[in-house]
């Protein structure tokens, strides 16, 4: 059914993405592709995969394909105050997913038990209307399979009892080298991800559109460019006090080092 579940479950599995520490390495996107090219949504078709050019003999020959996770890099602000922000973007598993309600066949659905939005590839007719309804560009059409594909929150990892418990997280989360991606239950206010969102003022993308995304983004921390921002003087004072405590002990010694110390201290 493409009507949304009437009793929304308490569990809202999703991601929290820390824009302060994402370095834009694309490792999450690559591991997403690697896992999902062999998982629930396999294959994630690529076209002209070895092409180095956009246009060849007037034909569109650019290398492109189906990816569930894409990393944009934005610049915000002007001049010296501007910030470069790497911005991973994938399905946000909205609480009000228009991609689900527009689906004419019932292939798109939102799971009652954990809120994950999925596509049934056996009933999708490939009309692409869901991709028009999604404001976040999360759905990608596989022209070879003729069906729509999207992030499954690695449903075939997070519940997979054949994996070590530590590995039962989405591929993007497990691979992030800087720990910028967090996975958990955003419906539970005491979960580690919910606390992180509360501490860091995590926010929704395009809140004005009203789709209530589950995934949250943590904003870049304020810029630190004066010594005051680093508490530098306080830290130096403390170091100076510690040094003052140790210097007299050396000064009271004898021999060559004590003489050098005394000479250099003049």
């Amino acid at each position, binding site marked *: *059914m*493409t*009507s*949304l579940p009437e009793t929304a479950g308490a569990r809202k599995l999703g991601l929290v993405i820390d*824009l302060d520490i994402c370095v*834009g390495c694309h490792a999450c*996107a690559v591991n997403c592709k690697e896992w999902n090219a062999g998982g629930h949504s396999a294959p994630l078709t690529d076209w002209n995969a070895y*092409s180095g050019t956009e246009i060849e003999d007037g034909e569109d020959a*650019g290398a*492109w*394909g189906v*990816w569930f996770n*894409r*990393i*944009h*890099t*934005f*610049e*915000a*602000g002007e001049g010296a*105050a*501007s*910030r*470069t*922000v790497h911005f991973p*973007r994938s399905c946000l598993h909205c609480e009000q997913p*228009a991609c*689900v*309600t*527009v*689906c*004419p*066949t*019932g292939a798109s659905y939102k799971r009652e038990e954990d809120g994950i939005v999925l596509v049934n590839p056996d*009933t*999708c*007719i*490939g*009309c*692409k209307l869901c*991709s*028009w309804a*999604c*404001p976040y*560009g999360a759905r*990608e*059409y596989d*022209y070879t*399979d*003729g*069906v*729509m594909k999207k992030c499954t929150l690695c449903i075939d990892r997070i519940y997979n009892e054949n994996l070590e418990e530590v590995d039962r997280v989405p591929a993007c989360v497990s691979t992030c080298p800087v720990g910028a991606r967090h996975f958990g239950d955003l419906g539970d206010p005491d979960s580690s991800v919910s606390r992180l969102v509360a501490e860091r003022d995590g926010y929704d*993308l*395009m*809140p*004005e*559109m*009203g789709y209530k995304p589950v995934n949250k*983004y943590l904003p*870049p921390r304020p810029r630190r460019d004066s010594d005051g921002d680093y508490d530098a003087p306080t830290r130096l004072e403390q170091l100076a006090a510690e040094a003052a405590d140790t210097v007299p002990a050396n000064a009271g010694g004898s021999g060559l080092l004590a003489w050098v110390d005394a000479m250099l201290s003049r």
Partner: protein
Amino acid sequence: MHPASSVIFFTTASGAGYGLLFLLGLAGSGGLVPASLAFGLVGFTIAFGLITAGLVASTFHLGHPERAWRAMSQWRSSWLSREGVAAVLTYVPAGLFAVGWVFLSDARGIWGVFGILAAAGAVATVVCTAMIYASLKTIRQWHHPLVLPGYLVLALYTGALWMALLTQAFGGAADVFLWLALLAGLAAAGVKAAYWQSVRDQRPAATSGSATGLGALGTVRLLDGPSTSKNFVMREMGYRIGRKHAQRLRQIAGVLGLAAPAVLLVIAILLPNGSGTIPVFLAALSGSAGVVVERWLFFAEATHVVTTYYGAEAA
């Protein structure tokens, strides 16, 4: 939005077909036109031909056309599903109405009831088609109060052009349909002019600042996209038409869609009854071509909010 030719053909052809079916249903059951074999045969061939060709064309852009029947199932939430249901249901009274008209030369009484049901089904189907687009909040040019009236009045207009042609060729209240076509054309032009003006002055639905949540830092601009060549989202949603071309195409839509048919219809009104077949036929062709240009613009000028992740400052 990428203007897919199958969808443009579907919405314009089935729009005209349903407009004609609507008028056949009302005029037949109301006795405004003769329930003759020739009128019925040609009229229903055009109406069912346009509707069916459009519906068949609409399956061409599907990845799995053989599963199209599944699209009937989600009418509770999906306008696309409702459109499928309405389109199929409309065939039932429309088919019975055609049987009465063509084989029994009777379009009144119980057959007239089928005609009115067919007219209602035609309206319902066009409403569903329009609502597929009007319900998408992601595209401000579609999520607009004038989209539904635009689809309805253009379906009526193109249907009236074909109906006017039928009455020229096979008799009936010819003047009524010439005037109806003329007035519907003027109404369509008014709705589209108001729509284009309103869309031009509309506030964006989202900005790169709200899309990324980085707006508080200042203007947000794309430094580096996620892929080296265009991906699906950029191809499907990122279609852009130059402002200059859009202006030129609006003029072409105005000339082909309204001005030329209006002149031809006035000529037919001035000619003696039943001798305006050629100008009305040309008016129907020109009007239909104008509506195709209008529909192409409806897609090509639509900006999707996802483009704010791909370099657009607002959409």
